[in-house]
Every structure is written in C-alpha cells, then in structure tokens.
C-alpha cells in the first residue's frame, strides 16, 4: 500500500517538475523575451516594460506588440496597446519614444 502511495507521489512530482522545465520558454524562441515594439503612426517604437509602461488590453484581434526578427517586425502579443493609465479607464497613448 505504501509502495503504491510512494509511486503515485513520485510520479506526480516528477511530472510537474519535468513538465515545468519542458514547457519553460526558451529565450531564442519566445517572442516575449525579445524587445517589444508597438506600431505608432507607421513607425515601430519601443513598447517599454509590460505591465509597467503598457498593457495589452484583451480581447482584441489587434496586434499589441511586435518583436524584431532580423530587420522584420513580427507580431508577438495581441490586444490593444495602451499605457498604464488605461487602468484608470481613460487611456491616452503614450508619447512615442525611440
């Protein structure tokens, strides 16, 4: 009985630790680890830090931020780009900065 108990617990712990490592983002593949940009008037500008400088307001089919692959900007996060003050319910776009 104790053997079965021990086996179930060992499997649970092994699966959770193994699963966490297996699904951990790899910096090279994970777009969110890259520098984020947002589209502002046809130009890509630095988005800043997620949650501090901006948030991606979901649900929305719009591209919130992009990341750079070589010289191309690829979509990364979805939602409406807005700055921290969108939490107050009156979003105003932040000034573009490079």
């Amino acid at each position, binding site marked *: 009985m104790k053997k079965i108990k021990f086996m179930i617990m060992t499997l649970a712990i092994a699966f959770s630790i193994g*699963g*966490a490592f297996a699904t951990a*983002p790899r910096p090279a593949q994970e777009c969110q*680890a890259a520098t984020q940009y947002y589209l502002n008037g046809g130009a890509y500008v630095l988005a800043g830090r997620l*949650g501090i400088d901006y*948030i991606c*307001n979901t649900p929305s089919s719009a591209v919130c931020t992009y990341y750079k692959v070589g010289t191309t900007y690829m979509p990364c996060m979805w939602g409406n780009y807005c700055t921290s003050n969108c939490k107050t319910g009156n979003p105003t776009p932040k000034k573009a900065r490079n």
Partner: protein
Amino acid sequence: MNKRQVVLESISALLIMLFLYASISKFLDFQRFIGEMNNQPLPNSWTPFLVWTVPSLEIAISLALIFERTRMVGLIASLVLMTLFTIYTAVILLHFFDYVPCSCGGVIRKLSWPQHLVFNLFFVVLSVIGIILQRRSFFKSILITKNSFV
C-alpha cells in the same frame, strides 16, 4: 489500499501536479511573471508581494499534500487558494475591471478566461472531495491518538 484511499491519493497527486507545475513555471520565467502580474488589474504596488507569495504558497501546499499528517491542511489551503483564483477569474469575466488582462502561467496561459474558470472550478471540486474523504481518516487518527492517552 481501498477505493477511498486510491481516490484521495489521486486527488492529492493532481493538486500537487497543478501547484508544483504552476510555481516552478513562474520561477523559471520570473521576469515574465512579474510583467504579467503588473498586467493584472491590481495595484502594481502589490506585485513585489504577490510574485513571491503566490508561488511560495503553491509550493507549501504541494509539500503539505505529500505527507499524510499535513494533507488536511494542504487540502483546505488548496480549496481556499483555488476559490480565490476562481473568484478572481469570475470577476474578470464579469468585466468588473476596466480591461481584461492576459491569462498567464506556463501552459495554463494558453487557456482563455472562460476555460480558466472551468479549470479552476474543477480543482475547487477536487479539493472539496479530497477534504470530505480525508476528514474521515483525519478524525479517525485524532480518536486513536486520544484513546492512546486514556
């Protein structure tokens, strides 16, 4: 090992997998977790407290669930935590806040908010079943301890 014990062990194993996986995932990508926590409609001043408390609590609950002696405490703690997560998810879905943030955390981040709600409710139900099943052996062990003193 009777049926009740098998179910109880399986429930504990599922909860351990959930909490251990979620906490390790958070620590493995801590910077992103901080960003995602800031992205939640909670005051950003809470972030330094929450980013350490939530995963630490999850690990503590997992440890409590492993050992027979602390399992009851672990089950109650997991019920409380999962209920809080469920209430938060429901509040998000009811558009109580000005915006809907991303739903984050390892593979779980791929779930939408309604899926999150079902997922959380499932684990709330599991915790309740676990407490009911554990209660019997918990009181039994108390009785045995009391009798041994008599």
